[in-house]
Each structure stands twice: as C-alpha cells, then as structure tokens.
C-alpha cells in the first residue's frame, strides 16, 4: 500500500492540488470482527473519488467512518488515522458535530425529513447548529438549491412538504440539505441506486459541477458511473476472512485502463462481482 501511495504522489504532482482527506491504515471492526481494513489513500481537494468493489467489500463501511457515523453503532471500532485538512477526526481537536458539518453525507435512498417543507429541509442542518437568522437561512436555501439544480423547479413551492417531490428531486433536495452547511467534503453512499436512469444522469451531471466547491467521495456499484464521474478510484475486495480490504487506489483512468493488480482488471472488465 505504501508503494501505491508513493506512486500516486509521484504520478500526481502539484497540479492535483491539496489533500482534503488522508486515510492511513483505516480499519473498521464490529464486535471485534474486521469489516474493512488496510485503507490508505489521499483524497485530493475538488475531485470526485469513487469507492468501487463487489458487495461486502466494505465500501459503505469505510465511507461511514469518514464522518464518524459508526460512533452510533454499539461495538463498532475504527482504527488507523483519518485526517481532514490536517486534523485527526477521531483524536484531534474537533467535535463530532463540527466534523459532520464539514463532511456532509447523502444516503442511498432519498431521506428528506417527511414532516418538514422543502425549505425547512434545506436549512435543517443550519437550524440544528443554532443558526436562526432568517436572512442567512433564506440565502443558504437559495444558494444550495441552486447548487443542487433544484431551485428552478421548487422556488415557487418552498413551503410544500418535501415528500411531494419525485425520487430524483428528493435526492437533489438531500444534496442541497448537505450543501447548505457549506461542507468541504461530501460523502455519497450509492446516491443513484434508488433512482431511474434520467434522474441518475441529472445527479451525475450535478456531481461534475459540484466538485468545484466540494470534494466528493462516492460509493458506487455502477462501474460506468465510477468511470464517468470520478477522478480517482479506490478498489476494495473481500479477503479470505470475509473482511474488505483496499486492493488498489489510483486515478480512475489508470484503474480502468491499466491497473497494477490483476483482480482490479478482472473486476472492471466484469469478470466477477
């Protein structure tokens, strides 16, 4: 792994920009059983990094370690170090609530708050964190809805319940809700798996524009999607002991065209998984 990282750094010099998140030997275990391990890679600022691999390879588990969502699960333990802009997110000088405002998350199924209006959904993160000023909330709502390409279709019905939106619109609302906190990193856990192809296309288009303001880390089952939208790619695979591990991390181009590990090639060619 160290080798791989060294090579990435060698191959991807300054032009790639600064590091947003840095993972070193990250492993997650539940009740002593390792679910994913050996994850060492750097996520470059303003890029899209995709985590790919077959079911059970620990992609989602790894993603949820990045905003400390495992803290809620009894018996879950995260080891290794994860740095966000130079701060160790588990041991450093950062509270879990602050971390989560800086590392936003979009889930597999759209999960807008059903009892809230579109507007209330978008500003909910700000309100949770004590922001009450209406002007500030209004501005954040409009900016983030525009960023999520949803403003034009909902600006005249902001007070309507969020559940009236279509599935694709609901997912974009969830993206807007995460963006309202102006995060540095946006984690996306298979954000299009519950959506139809058109809605998926919209979200993918959106991700390409989003990376100018936020670093995106996305879990996806869809290799075409990973190839279309991501700059870097982490390939995970389930080991013999059923724990997921990082096989290879590199630029998407390299992973799909000329990977180091034969298993990566087999997977991206669709020979298994």
């Amino acid at each position: 792994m160290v080798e791989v990282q060294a090579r990435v750094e060698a191959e991807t010099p300054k032009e790639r920009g600064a590091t947003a998140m840095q993972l070193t030997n990250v492993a997650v275990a539940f009740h002593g059983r390792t679910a994913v391990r050996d994850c060492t890679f750097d996520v470059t600022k303003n890029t899209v990094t995709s985590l790919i691999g077959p079911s059970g390879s620990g992609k989602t588990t790894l993603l949820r370690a990045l905003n400390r969502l495992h803290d809620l699960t009894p018996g879950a333990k995260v080891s290794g170090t994860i740095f966000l802009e130079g701060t160790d997110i588990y041991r450093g000088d950062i509270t879990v609530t602050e971390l989560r405002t800086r590392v936003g998350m979009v889930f597999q199924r759209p999960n807008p708050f059903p009892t809230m209006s579109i507007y209330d959904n978008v500003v909910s993160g700000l309100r949770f964190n004590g922001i009450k000023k209406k002007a500030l909330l209004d501005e954040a709502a409009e900016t983030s809805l525009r960023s999520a390409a949803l403003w034009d279709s909902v600006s005249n019905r902001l007070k309507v319940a969020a559940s009236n939106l279509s599935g694709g619109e609901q997912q974009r609302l969830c993206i807007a809700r995460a963006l309202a906190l102006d995060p540095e990193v946006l984690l996306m856990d298979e954000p299009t798996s519950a959506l139809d192809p058109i809605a998926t296309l919209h979200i993918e288009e959106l991700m390409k524009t989003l990376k100018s303001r936020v670093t995106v880390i996305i879990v996806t089952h869809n290799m075409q999607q990973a190839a279309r939208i991501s700059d870097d790619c982490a390939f995970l695979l389930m080991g013999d002991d059923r724990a997921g591990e990082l096989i290879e991390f590199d630029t998407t181009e390299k992973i799909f065209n000329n990977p180091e590990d034969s298993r990566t090639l087999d997977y991206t060619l669709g020979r298994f998984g």
Partner: protein
Amino acid sequence: MSDVMELEPSHTGHEMREQIRQSADRNRSRRLAVSRVMVALCSAAIVLAAVPLVLLMYQLIKQGAGQISWKFFTTLPTTPTLLDPTATGGISNAIVGTLALTLYASVMAIPLGIIVGIYLAETQSKLATTLRVIAQTMAGAPSILMGLFAFSFIVHDLNVGFSAIAGSFALAVLMMPVIIISTEIAVRNVPATLREAGLALGAKSHKVSLKVVLPSALTGIVTGVILAISRAIGETAPVMLVIAGGFINSWKPLSPVSAMPLAIYENAKSEWPSQRAQVWGIALVLVVFVFILSLSARIWASRKQQVR
C-alpha cells in the same frame, strides 16, 4: 444437434403447461364452490359481530334520546319525592366532574407517558427493560386496582380525602401504560435513515429526537393519547372508590366530584324509575363524547398523513 437441444426443453415446457391447465380445469368447479362458502361464512361472521353493536346503539338512542334536553346538561341532579317522582334534575355535576377528572389525569399522564415512551424507544438499558415490563403489566391490570391504590395512597395515606385529584390520579395510572406503549411503537417505527440524516447534518442526538424523530412519530403518539383518554373517560371502577360523587359543579382538584360512569352506576341502583331511565341519557352523552374524541383523532391523523 443444436436444433434438438433447443426443441427439447420447449417441448416438455409445453406438456407441463398443458397439464397445469388441465388440473386447473378439473378443480375449477370445486374451487368456485369453496370460494362461495367462504364468502358466505365471512358475511355471516360480519353480521353476527355487528348485531350486538347495532342493538346496543339502537337501545341507547331509543331510550337515551328522550332524556336529552338543555336542562339535562345544565342542572344539578335532584332526588325525586313521592310528590314529584320524576324530578331527577340534570347531570351537570357528572359532566363537569368527568371533564375535570380527564383534564387532570391528562395533565399528569400525557407528558410523563410520552417521555417514558421515547426513553424506552431510544435506549437499551436494564432500566428500560424493567420499565417496559411494568408498563405492559400495568396495561393488563384490572382497573379497580388503580382505584384501590388511589384510595389507600391519596385518600388515606396522604389524607387528601375523597377528591377529583384522587380520581384523576387513578385514571392517570390507567392511561400511562397505554401512552407509554403506543409512544414507544410510534417512535420505533420512525425509519433509522431519518435519524442518521439528522446526525449526519451535525445535529446533536437530543436535537434529532426532538426535531426529526418526534414530529415523524407524532401521528402515532397522538392516536395513542386519544385512545388512552377515551378509555379513561368511560372508566367507573378506578374513580368510584375515591371521588365520592359530589353533587356540585366543581373544577376544584380537592373537592369531591361526580363522573358520568359513576352517575350511571348510582342511578341504575336507584329505587326511582325516573332515575333509572336517566342512565340511558347519561350513557348516550358519554358515548357521543368518546365518539367525537376518536373521530377528531382520526381526522387529525389522516390530515397529517396527507401532508406527508
């Protein structure tokens, strides 16, 4: 070779389909007969279940409607005399008493019941398990027990005497398990993904409970609360030992009060036919009370559902 390989499965497939069709035809008349019998049995069961209910409502309205008048609601009861055997007066004290008892019982039971219900849904501890067992046991306990408890504890030990507060305490103990259990179920039914969504936005756990989980569970909680109130309104046993059936319109917690179920019980024992006839009027008012409550709960819940 390849032609044969392709023909073979489709041939057996055809044969199989033919057999399935034949078997379906053979059984068709038998299945139709069974279906008719089942439909007839279900209809009979529905009629059988509805008969007592319809009879009850018929009797209630037939015997009770004549009792209802403005005076019935607004005046205190009087005791008939030989000179005026129909002078029964109204039931204003029982109506006021029931409202007061329900109000105080609700004030005691609803907040506490909801808080405990949320606690049970959100934590896994020994205390939570114990509380749950207690709530479930209490929900099945005979209601006279609450009356006995209120009598020995409030009326006797605390020396408060026969009073509205003692009655509402008994009713509150009765309502609490219903509220606790329905709140726990409602909160548990809120999808975990909503809680995660809230936490992932940097909200503290208690904020997520208050602003996300609770509003989503509100319909279920309110339904449980109204169910509990409806049950408490109609209970006789818990209050008959402790409220002393006062003959005044009183909202004071410490004064003896009457209640509609108690008035039914007392009047039914009366030696005056006019007072015995009154029980149907009181029962009708009580049923209409409960009906309005549960109807409003249903309307409220369905409107909430639409907002979703």
